């Protein structure tokens, strides 16, 4: 019997699976799960890629415990260079960034994102963190991926409250699903084997093409072992507190 996903490992491992050999991949601030995904890929996959992080690290390998903050200077450890903020943004806008993990509070079917407000921008019900790099990076990188720990009609929406960024968002990973953009719209690529496609549709605010969707291939021993090495006491998994919707779990 093969291993199964937890909601947390479904997100981290499927983010890691988006990383491709010999590409330049970036993880940013407020991005704990992509930080873990990049480290997981370094440890579990038998190929080279360049990992840039917002702390300025190039292929860093933190010694000891992984920091809680994805911008922690500990993510410089083992780096042979400092590649700081202006450097990686300029790299991106001149076309040198292959994959970036960019956070989003809301995502619509076209892959546009809102990280600015819930409600009207000028009279916000909730003021969100702001887009950070996304407005500049999303249109200029090759592929962006985002993640949501809550897969619900208020995070995967038919209409954004505000369009913080639009561009080359290619993938969305949640505890339930992996979406891949096809013909300009997010389509279901795979689903957590613990949930059905109907359950994902019910939890998603937009309709999507699910033709060809398969159960997400189970985690490999190498992936699980790498994740255990990154989160030996389960701190990240507990802090992330990711659950499947109640109707499903």
């Amino acid at each position, binding site marked *: 019997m093969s291993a199964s996903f937890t909601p947390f490992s479904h997100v981290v491992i499927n983010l890691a699976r988006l990383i491709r050999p010999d590409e330049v991949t970036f993880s940013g*601030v407020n991005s704990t799960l992509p930080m873990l995904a990049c480290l997981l890929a370094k440890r579990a996959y038998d190929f080279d890629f360049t990992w840039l992080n917002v702390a300025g690290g190039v292929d860093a390998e933190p010694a000891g415990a992984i920091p809680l903050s994805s911008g922690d200077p500990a993510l410089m450890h083992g780096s042979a260079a400092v590649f700081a*903020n202006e450097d990686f943004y300029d790299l991106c806008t001149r076309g040198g960034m292959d994959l970036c993990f960019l956070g989003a509070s809301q995502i619509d079917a076209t892959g546009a994102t809102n990280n600015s407000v819930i409600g009207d921008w000028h009279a916000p019900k909730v003021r969100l963190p702001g*887009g950070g790099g996304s407005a500049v990076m999303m249109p200029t990188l090759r592929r962006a991926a985002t993640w949501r720990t809550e897969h619900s009609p208020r995070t995967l929406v038919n209409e954004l409250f505000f*369009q913080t*960024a*639009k561009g080359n968002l290619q993938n969305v990973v949640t505890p339930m699903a992996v979406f891949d953009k096809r013909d300009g719209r997010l389509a279901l690529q795979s689903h957590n084997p613990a949930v059905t496609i109907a359950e994902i549709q019910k939890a998603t605010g937009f309709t999507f093409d699910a033709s060809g969707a398969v159960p997400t291939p189970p985690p490999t021993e190498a992936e699980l072992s790498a994740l255990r090495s990154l989160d030996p006491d389960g701190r990240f998994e507990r802090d992330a507190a990711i659950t499947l919707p109640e109707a499903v779990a």
Partner: protein
Amino acid sequence: MSAKSKLISLAEMVAQIPDGASIGLGGSFLHRGPFAFCRELIRQDKRDLEIIKASPGYDIDILCRAGAVRRVRAGIVAMEGNFGLAGAYRKAVESGRVELEEHACMTLVAGLRAGSAGVPFQPVGGVHGSQIAKINGWKKMADPYGSNEETYLIPAIRPDFAVIHAHEIDAAGNARVYGSPHWDRVMTRAAKTLFVTGEKLVETDRFREQPELTLVPGFMVKAACEVRQGAWPGSLEPEYPVNYAEVQDYVDEPGAGIERHMSRAPEAQG
């Protein structure tokens, strides 16, 4: 011959900042921010400040909590390190007490680059498809050299003051930073008046040995101040990591007060 000393106390430094000033802050989120400086702004009861920083967190939150801020120009604001949204900042913007100029981090930096170069605006990549451009009234321009590619132009930003916290300073105001400079280089060049706080005061000869490690040459600096634990409760690697227990204690202080937290700050200890 040694240059004239620029060393003053933290209280004297902050006393030079008038109410209503715009201040660019160094560091990023919980890392190497001039946080002791921010707390001194609160002790001196500064009001109506405009805070400029691509990725503020603890600093903007505590300044909002103290009622010191009128306006923010920022790209992304959060406490980070699993603390989530910056609650006091969030409430201040939602209630309208604080006005936000929302940026993408690099658009703020484009404005600072324009400011540091002494030109009225700076082109920036991306932004296409973002409603942030409309909110801010940013204009775009077709490439006048033939490609016709459209590029957004961000108006210059010149903070009245910039303050960064460095690992080492000397009496002449030279400042050395180890690890990532974050956005501090452009911030220090764009500001009209530059202050540096430093974790450790060292001799100028140490700077002369490796001038390539000097982020800010002293001649640019108006005043400098040694502040031990100046980035507390954030990190100054490799000297000290984020003090998560103290950040949590700040977040949890009852009634959104700051007295307990302020009294625990290193610079408040005898």
